[in-house]
């Protein structure tokens, strides 16, 4: 057989076909999922992979998951080999040591067979609201993974098209919301099957040799692009460090140190010197750590180009074991995001002197979660939100206001009317937080103000980070305002409370949330006078 030599058209069609196949998986997942955390907050990701776990086409809902599906597949293959997979099988896994994220993020994947030969995988990862953690909602004070829910190692749920009801029952039995769990799982399975069909149709059309050769050509295109872009950054070592308030259990700060080395067309990101594994749940497995660093790389290197298995080949990530970026197998991981988001932002900051035109001042650096759990006429309810804040200003202009954090992308906030229809909650205010953007030649974006009232007794969980070290300014710009959260029980004075776990409140409690603003860019005295006047006229800044 002659070596495959696909035409340029075949390469381009194959490239697009895998991307649109993943898009199709994503639409399928969004539309049939049960939980708002998937269909509105887009806390999910889907992709199509080869047998080495290299990405052929992705459709990220959560950009944070950019590289985690491939990393998870590689970790599973490393443990299980390729021979365990059969046609029509569906597997799932959530264990933090394999997936890198918290147990609520459940990865479902399907092997793709073509004429009896394993050619790749399709995978979907989505956040399930409850996998049986010690409390309903978003536990803030767990100290090991056993308090965070059911650990599922790589498990075959469907064998040759037949679902193992016992495994499904076992998982559902461990959740406080079994109906939603089954609905979300079925949506993930359906998305994976959609991807398998698309994969097969692509190969049926061009034949495997041409598809394989096209994939190699696409990877080479992506790699070239990455290397050219990194080569344009001046060689050198760039560092930045910062800290989080605490890990939710101890009161000491969590340190993050980032050291970026640019050598020719390669980048190394070294997290050595960052915090030891946390007692609380600010820990992430290496797969998710690498995924987050890849996302920050993407912020700085060709943000507009689609991602494939050819990307990130010139990126090395060093995360020493025993740190919060590469903890032990039983470490608590529920808040696997805050230190990663900080590391991402620090990477941008570290490189801001080398490539100011690609950088931005500090932006929303946390997921800023507020969760209500209680009983209503339909039984147990859970309203979980991640709130928006101000983004950092940059050399091209002011930062955007009221935007979701960097780990999330096409996330949409929860409409007030939907929330009030669904849950015994009332919103008294939802607006921009005036004056919260960091001053600068370009101003940071504004955070928001939201005031909630509980209409029945319930439990509140609050997780608001970065109150001590808010979004920083750059090149003389000032920091944005830190988040400020107060709980007001009926008849009592407000109490500042950035974090709370399982706080029981009566009906009539109010929670006033002010999220942080973005950092400013450049000397505030250099701000265009029209911009100053406009901000004053509109009440955005004083």
């Amino acid at each position, binding site marked *: 057989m002659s070596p495959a030599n696909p035409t340029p058209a075949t390469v381009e*069609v194959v490239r697009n076909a895998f991307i649109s196949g993943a898009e199709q998986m994503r639409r399928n997942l969004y539309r049939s999922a049960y939980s708002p955390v998937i269909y509105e907050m887009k806390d999910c990701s889907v992709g199509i992979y080869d047998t080495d776990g290299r990405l052929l086409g992705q459709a990220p809902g959560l950009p944070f998951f950019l590289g985690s599906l491939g990393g998870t597949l590689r970790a599973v293959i490393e443990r299980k080999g390729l021979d365990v997979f059969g046609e029509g099988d569906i597997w799932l896994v959530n264990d933090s040591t394999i997936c890198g994220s918290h147990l609520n993020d459940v990865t479902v994947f399907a092997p793709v067979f073509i004429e009896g030969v394993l050619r790749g995988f399709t995978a979907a990862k989505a956040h399930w609201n409850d996998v049986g953690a010690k409390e309903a909602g978003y536990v803030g004070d767990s100290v090991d993974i056993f308090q965070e829910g059911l650990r599922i190692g790589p498990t075959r749920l469907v064998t040759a098209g037949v679902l193992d009801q016992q495994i499904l029952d076992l998982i559902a039995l461990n959740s406080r919301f079994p109906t939603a769990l089954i609905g979300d799982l079925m949506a993930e399975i359906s998305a994976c099957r959609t991807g398998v069909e698309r994969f097969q149709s692509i190969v049926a059309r061009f034949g495997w040799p041409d598809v394989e050769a096209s994939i190699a050509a696409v990877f080479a295109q992506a790699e070239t692009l990455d290397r050219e872009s990194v080569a344009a950054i001046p060689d050198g070592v760039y560092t930045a460090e910062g800290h989080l308030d605490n890990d939710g259990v101890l009161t000491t700060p969590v340190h993050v140190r980032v050291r970026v080395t640019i050598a020719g067309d390669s980048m190394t990101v070294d997290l050595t010197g960052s915090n030891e594994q946390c007692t609380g749940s600010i820990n992430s497995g290496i797969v998710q750590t690498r995924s987050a660093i890849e996302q920050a790389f993407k912020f700085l290197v060709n943000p507009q180009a689609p991602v494939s298995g050819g990307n990130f080949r010139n990126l090395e990530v060093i995360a020493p074991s025993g740190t919060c970026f590469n903890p032990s197998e039983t470490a608590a991981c529920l808040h696997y995001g805050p230190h990663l988001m900080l590391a991402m932002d620090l990477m941008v900051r570290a490189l801001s002197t080398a490539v100011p035109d690609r950088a931005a001042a500090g932006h929303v650096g946390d997921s800023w979660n507020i969760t209500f759990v209680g009983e209503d006429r339909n039984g147990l309810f859970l309203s979980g939100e991640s709130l928006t804040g101000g983004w950092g200003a940059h050399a091209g202009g002011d930062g955007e206001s009221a935007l979701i954090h960097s780990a999330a992308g096409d996330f949409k906030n929860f409409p007030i009317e939907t929330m009030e229809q669904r849950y015994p909650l009332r919103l008294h205010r939802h607006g921009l937080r005036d004056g919260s953007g960091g001053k600068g030649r370009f101003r940071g974006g504004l955070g928001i103000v939201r005031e909630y009232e509980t209409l029945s007794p319930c439990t509140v969980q609050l997780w608001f980070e970065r109150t001590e070290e808010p979004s920083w300014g750059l090149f003389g710009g000032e920091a944005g305002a830190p988040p400020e959260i107060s709980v007001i029980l009926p008849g009592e004075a407000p109490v500042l409370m950035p974090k709370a776990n399982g706080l029981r409140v009566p009906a009539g409690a109010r929670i006033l949330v002010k999220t942080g603003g973005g950092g400013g860019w450049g000397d505030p005295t250099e701000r265009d006078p029209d911009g100053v006047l406009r901000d004053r006229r509109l009440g955005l800044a004083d």
Partner: protein
Amino acid sequence: MMNRVAVDIGGTFTDLVIESAGSPPRIGKVLTTPHDLVEGVVGAIEAAGVPLESTELFIHGTTSGLNTLLERRGAKVALVTTRGFRDVYLIGRGHRPDMYDLRYRKPEPLLERSDIIEIDERLAADGTVLTPVDRNSVEIAAKAIDEGGYDAVAVCLIHSYVDPRHELEVRALLDEHLGGLPILLSHETAPEWREYERTSTAVTSAYITPKVHAYLQRISAELQARGLKVPLHITQSNGGAMTADLAADRAALTLFSGPVGGVVGGRAIGRQLDRPNLICIDMGGTSFDVSLVRDGEVGLQSEFELAGLPILAPAVELVTIGAGGGSVIHEELGGLRVGPRSAGSTPGPACYGHGGTEPTVSDANALLGRLPAQQRLAGSMVLDVAAAERALENVASGFGIGPVELAEQALEVTHFAMAEAIRELTVERGLHPRDFALAAFGGAGPLHAAFLADELEIDEVVIPAHPGAFSAWGMLQGDVRYDVVTTFYRRFEDVGDDLAATIESLKEKVHRAMGSDATTRLRFEVSVELRYVGQEYSLLIPLVEQSADSQLAGDFHAAYLTRYGHSNPEAPIEFVAVRMAGIVDFPGEGSDGAAMSGSAPGVLGTQDVVFGGRAVATRVLDRSAVGAEPVEGPVIIVEQSTTTVVPPGWRVDSNRGGHLLMTRSIGGSR
């Protein structure tokens, strides 16, 4: 003899179609007059000699609203909203669709913060009054609006979709102080939950209303002055028509008034040819639109975005990609890319001979011989094939292939992108393109249709009569329609008599709105949005009986299974909304004869056309030469403004209504 007239205003031409029973439609074409569109309409009427006195239906697709929005030349709008929620419209939904962009900016809103005024009032989610409307705060708002020099007002109060009383009260109070200023209430523009989307719809409506209103008044007056005795009708985004008076108050419903004519025309062709399932493609210079006719009905969506701003209004469901004749063929990092950049009209494709040097899809077609020399581009342009070849050669050399090879490969990439757009509307909903015929129109649609059909295993392609004025012709094939919706959030088993009562109140609403159009021939189509309890996205299920019975539940489970490949008949269902369309057929009869008249010479010539890497001697026919007797491909058919390619393995005949029907020959290739 009574007649029916439609006018469609395009970027270049204003098209008019006049129909009268028993004779073929006549077409008038004049240049569009951008400085004053009414002038072009009047010009077209005069050129075609339309006897307006005997016109029983005059229908028009207006781009007034859409252009006002896209060009940002709308009204200065004040927004009145509930205290505490001033920034809802500015905040939007907080998402970052360009997720790797550190500098992402939200779509530019149509007004700024100082244009938003809070008043004291509040309803609870169930409609209970928590805070009554405070007159004083409304009067303060009225004063600010009066002094601010505003052209229009939008009012959006929290939970007004549950109970409109506060919005109505606010309008009454504002009216006392601001008599004459248009005041748009959010529950009237879109009575649906989700405060940001409803606000956006109300604000957009207010933004375009003064311009749309003025335009419709002027054109109505001009037509009446020239003898028109019936009310002017306007095509809505949902494909149906409404009177210009109603359209002036419901400007948001006209945003896609222009583009939908083609889709409605597609549905009509389907009826004429007994093809209830059609994929309609409309391809011009810069974009490729796909829409679906299924079981004889046009697919609708209840929400869409324009310039990033959400609009809650029914519109024909279109999937648009940036693929047109002007899409640029280029190399990027060793990969072959086509579009989304377009050469536009200046310099345009290289083959236009206006100095364009980058190769485009049109250049590929030209070099492959698929745009014959007999085809005059945009009227009088002569095709410069040598320029096309030079442009393609520049890019082809980078791949080590020849220009002809590149041309074919670039079209392969383009056809795949188009096929993906079609799959999004079909395969993803459990439908197979095989079960549809393909209807192709727009300047470039018929050039590509057969290749697209090959890609999608479709066996039949229809090229409509009058492709040059197809949108205008399509408008005449519609009906008068008015859509209403109400949020209806209830568990399936809790519905009781509420459903029937809701349907009755919607019927009254339709009657009130349609006014003189609500004749005895008015009929209703009711459908409900259902979902599993806890889900967000719902499915629209036609309602046969007016109750939440087991048949309706069964229909829902079945539709869910088709759409997503799984369903859960055990799981509880909930209602989200009830939708109703009031429909009245147009008066009078349409024409039925073939469109083609005149006797152009049949065979215009023979030339080499490349199919699958081989140059094949191919006849070039004038469209009027194709009759009921099938003509075997390869053949190129030319007519004013479009070219149809019939590749080897396909045959074509001219069918009922004068439409070309291409089918795969027996033993044809695939």
